[in-house]
């Protein structure tokens, strides 16, 4: 009986501690994401396109980030301005192609 009481006391202490310890895990990066500003992709237009090396991983990453930001911007507008919205042939690949062309044409 005394043993059961001791075990019960230990469980009362250990179970909450175990639950708290489970909160200590590798965290989602969004936990320390500050109030970040959106990528300033419009400013890419001021860059000299002739000097851009498209094999440069930096520029590849910049374009990829801007494509992603633009895609999120289109989603936010509800596709209202997408002229290809009702065309069944419109695919995600086409959307990326449009966004790439748009980024380049702005130069």
């Amino acid at each position, binding site marked *: 009986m005394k043993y059961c009481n001791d075990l019960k006391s230990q469980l009362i202490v250990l179970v909450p501690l175990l639950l708290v310890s489970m909160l200590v895990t590798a965290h989602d990066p969004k936990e*320390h994401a*500050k109030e970040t500003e959106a990528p*300033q992709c419009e*400013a*890419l237009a001021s860059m000299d396109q002739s000097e851009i090396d498209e094999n440069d*991983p930096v520029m590849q990453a910049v374009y990829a980030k801007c494509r992603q930001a633009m*895609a999120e911007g289109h989603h936010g507008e509800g596709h209202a301005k997408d002229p290809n919205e009702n065309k069944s042939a419109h695919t995600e690949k086409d959307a990326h192609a449009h966004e790439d062309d748009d980024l380049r044409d702005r130069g």
Partner: protein
Amino acid sequence: MQVFKSLLITGLIVFVSASAFIFSGWYPIGADDQHTAVVYWALETLRERSVEHASKDLVVPALNDSKLLLLGGPDYNEMCAGCHLKPGRSESDMSLGLYPVPPDLTVSHGQHSEDHAGPAQRFWVIKHGIKASGMPAWGLTHDDQRIWAMVAFIQKLPELTPLQYQILTARTSGDTVHDH
């Protein structure tokens, strides 16, 4: 026997002197009070040799990957830029107040004599930190993939323009942590 006694007495004197020095509190420990040149050299050499030794067997993956830059950029901006700076910013409260001074990672090796670390050394330092320096061990909360992504970003950081830096480090709602 006499030699043994002499060594023992010498050792005892050194031990007592060292203990007195430590417990006296005489040595200034403030970050705004720099070490003497000899002490600084000894600590810096110890640190660099230790990191070189610990990281010598690390296998560096291919870092010239745009996906790694996209993964490492936001983490660098949020976790590192406060001390190690970013394009267009030459100092911060942390970079001015910490001692030893955190290396400015926006300048290339040729310009910053205190930072000659290669990618393997950088990975090790990010993962394990540096004792008593203000550099935390990020490996306790970040896996190797994310740390290698930060290394890849740091390798490119000196050549980034402020615009490229801003775009690469901005977080979009689509940012996710890749599964490993």
